[in-house]
């Protein structure tokens, strides 16, 4: 367990604010518990101090006004301090790099100005202002980067913005922090802060449109497959297979066929399963949802890409199994 690093000047300012709040809290707590303890020791039944029923009315007014105004003054100063730091979030500097982040059950799609796209990864340069434009395709999500001490809800149908200047290179986690359905805890990713040369390098070497498998991965997510099927890529520890079978290691494995006899999952099996949908193809398991047909939704190019992607989820099987695969037919 390591203490949460500060990856921006704003994060440092927030930590100072938190330290201030903590100090005041500790002082008040010390006062409350101290007075409680002293009172118990001095005034418990059987102690030497006799019980007095003196009229406290006169005395009490002074105390009441004293602690009420002290509390008010301290609270007002805290309010001003924290509000000033918050206002900054609404004022992105001009010239900030604008990166589009789209939330969707249950992944983050990131698009860069240069046309690069990523899933659950966010690359930013160190020392430059970055503005994230956040939106959602379905429910309300929330984009949270603890090392930068910022977060914002991500709403369907509108853009929200947060901005930051990262000052520390490295890899840090970001999370969805607004409950968005059963895959909520899988909706995390990695923020990669690079120095400016590495960043330029990364931009150059990241193709604007990816390989077949990468395209397939995009399709897998964009068509909602990842909503039900665990694919292991984004959260290796995800194991929720109550809605649909996991795709990890599925390719090349044996499953019971329609007549009960086991059949091997090959490319054709996957291809047909996607086209026909539902449990028609395989009777295994009792899943809470029925897979819809994607006939008419996905073209063959898409299917090929999807199948190529699913093969990568069974690294041991993919090399030997490629032989019988339906070869992607160009221009079909």
């Amino acid at each position, binding site marked *: 367990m390591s203490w949460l690093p500060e990856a921006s000047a704003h994060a440092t300012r927030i930590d100072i604010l*938190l330290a201030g709040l903590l100090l005041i809290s500790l002082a008040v707590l010390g006062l409350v518990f101290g007075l409680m303890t002293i009172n118990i020791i001095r005034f418990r039944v059987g102690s030497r101090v006799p019980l007095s029923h003196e009229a406290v009315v006169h005395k009490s007014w002074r105390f009441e006004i004293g602690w009420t105004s002290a509390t008010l003054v301290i609270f007002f100063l805290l309010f001003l301090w*924290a509000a000033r730091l*918050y206002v900054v*979030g609404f004022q992105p500097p001009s010239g900030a790099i604008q990166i589009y982040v789209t939330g969707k059950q249950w992944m983050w799609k990131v698009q860069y100005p240069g046309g690069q796209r990523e899933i659950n990864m966010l690359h930013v340069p160190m020392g430059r202002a970055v503005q994230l434009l956040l939106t959602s395709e379905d429910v309300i999500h929330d984009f949270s980067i603890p090392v930068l001490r910022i977060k914002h809800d991500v709403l*369907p149908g509108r853009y929200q913005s947060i901005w930051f200047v990262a000052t520390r290179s490295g890899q840090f986690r970001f999370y969805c*922090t607004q*409950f968005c359905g*059963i895959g*909520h805890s899988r909706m995390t990713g990695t923020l990669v802060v690079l120095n400016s040369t590495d960043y330029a390098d990364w931009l150059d070497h990241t193709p604007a449109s990816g390989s077949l498998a990468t395209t397939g991965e995009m399709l897998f997510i964009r068509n909602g497959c990842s909503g039900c099927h665990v694919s292991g890529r984004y959260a290796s520890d995800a194991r929720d297979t109550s809605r649909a079978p996991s795709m990890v290691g599925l390719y090349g494995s044996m499953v019971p066929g329609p007549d009960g006899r086991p059949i091997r999952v090959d490319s054709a099996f996957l291809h047909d399963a996607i086209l026909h949908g539902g449990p028609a193809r395989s009777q295994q398991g009792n899943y809470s949802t029925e897979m819809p047909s994607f006939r008419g939704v996905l073209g063959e190019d898409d299917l090929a890409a999807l199948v190529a992607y699913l093969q990568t989820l069974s690294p041991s099987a993919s090399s030997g199994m490629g032989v019988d695969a339906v070869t992607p037919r160009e221009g079909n």
Partner: protein
Amino acid sequence: MALTADRERSYLWQDGTVRSWLLTTDHKRIALLYMASITVFFILGGIGAALIRMQLVMPTGAILSDETYGRMFTMHGIVMVWLFLVPSIPVTLGNFLVPLMLGARDLAFPRLNLISWYLFVMAGLLVVYGLFRGGLETGWTFYTPLSTDYTQGRVLPVVAGVFLSGFSSIATGLNFIISIHQLRASGMTWYRLPLMLWALYATSVIFVLATPVLSITLVLLAFEHFFRVGVFDPTLGGDPLLFQHLFWFYSHPAVYIMILPGMGVVSEVVSTFCHKQVFGYRFVAWSSISIAAIGFLVWGHHMFVAGTSLYAAVVFSMLSFLVSVPSAIKVFNWLGTMHGGAIRLDAPMLYAMGFIGLFTVGGLTGLFLASLASDVHLTQTYFVVAHFHYIMVGGMVSAYFAGLHYWWPKITGRMYPEMWGRTAAALLFFGFNLTFFPQFLLGYEGMPRRYATYPAQFQVLNVLSSAGASILALAYILPLIYFAWSLLRGARATDNPWQATGLEWRTSSPPPTENFVHPPVVTHDAYDYAALDQANIAARQEVPHA
């Protein structure tokens, strides 16, 4: 024998048929009906909490699938908030005590009181039906559009149940307000009311004013679902933030519904066990009212990162600081009450001091969340979970137990075993802190709430928290056992075992059905221990039955 005669007349034993209990209009019996119901719901919600803490022992999730986990924390939240915390003290201790403290025969509308219990039970059954036949994974907040378009769970029966429970709350609130206005005994002026009644009065005002907003919101939710009227759903032209505004307009005042009665109990208990007038009575009384009033103006602090305007955020932040001032006033006044008293550390007092400590932590961490910039970092993490549990469990549940122990002799006519009471109070304090303090650190580190699985770096603190939860469970189970035991074997309680001043202690334990044989006349301020002591001395010299 006088004792048996008292027993015959007591509300507990006069006509013991099931029918007479189910059709009773006696506020004391209805209080017990409520007590039984909310205990069942508390156990149900507690089982949810236990499963949640077991799951989170392992980063990959120890026992539940993601889906079951979602349903479990939703169940925990909904049951605990609407079927335990909101009703808890008002409908049990409040129902029992309001007429007794006023010196009245019953509440203003005894039949309405019974109806409100039936509504509550129906609401509870609907919610439980929805949660068990299919379940629901939206969290207790029902945020749209997740709850309208993207969940397969049973939203409607659950929402209908919550809707119905609202009517139960409104009925109880109305009953209390009118009773306090109309049924005060001769000589019972407003400034002679016990602080418990000021707190319950403030609570009732919130019940009556805020709950309809929740009902309207839930109706709109149903409208959108059935008739596709665009209210909250952006694809239909609605605004999802509108739901949050309406929801928190009820649910933030509801936080004060949950804590104000607890503050009332603590004022009673601290005064009794210090044998001294409450310091700054009028300030404590009016702080309840101002909490209720300002509490209506702070709902926006749940939405600092939701996409509201900068100006709204700034105003709501300032008002949130303001609402914590009256709470601070109460804490200081309780400490002032202890000063110069004759302090006895019986179980109710231990629970009340636990309340003061834990509520102070909850309140102070509330400042971290009322502060705009730090809220951005901490909100929607475990910091928030820890914060509101300190208020609602550390505060409210401690106060509920303080009240239960304090009035147990009056309610049942039996004493609970004191040693066990103290043990349970200490266990509660220790177990609670071990459970929830690590969650503050988890929140600072960035662990989001409502995660079924989490990165391995958070495991140590999660294991600590789960260990604390098992101690906390013990602290809840113990009172269940010894309270049940005391019903049969506990020592018989005298009429005023704590030497307290309230009217409820002037009648027998348990009270007769009509509460007071002779209508009481109030001649002193609340908590006038000087007068009580003098009267006791005088009584000892004359007849022993004053």
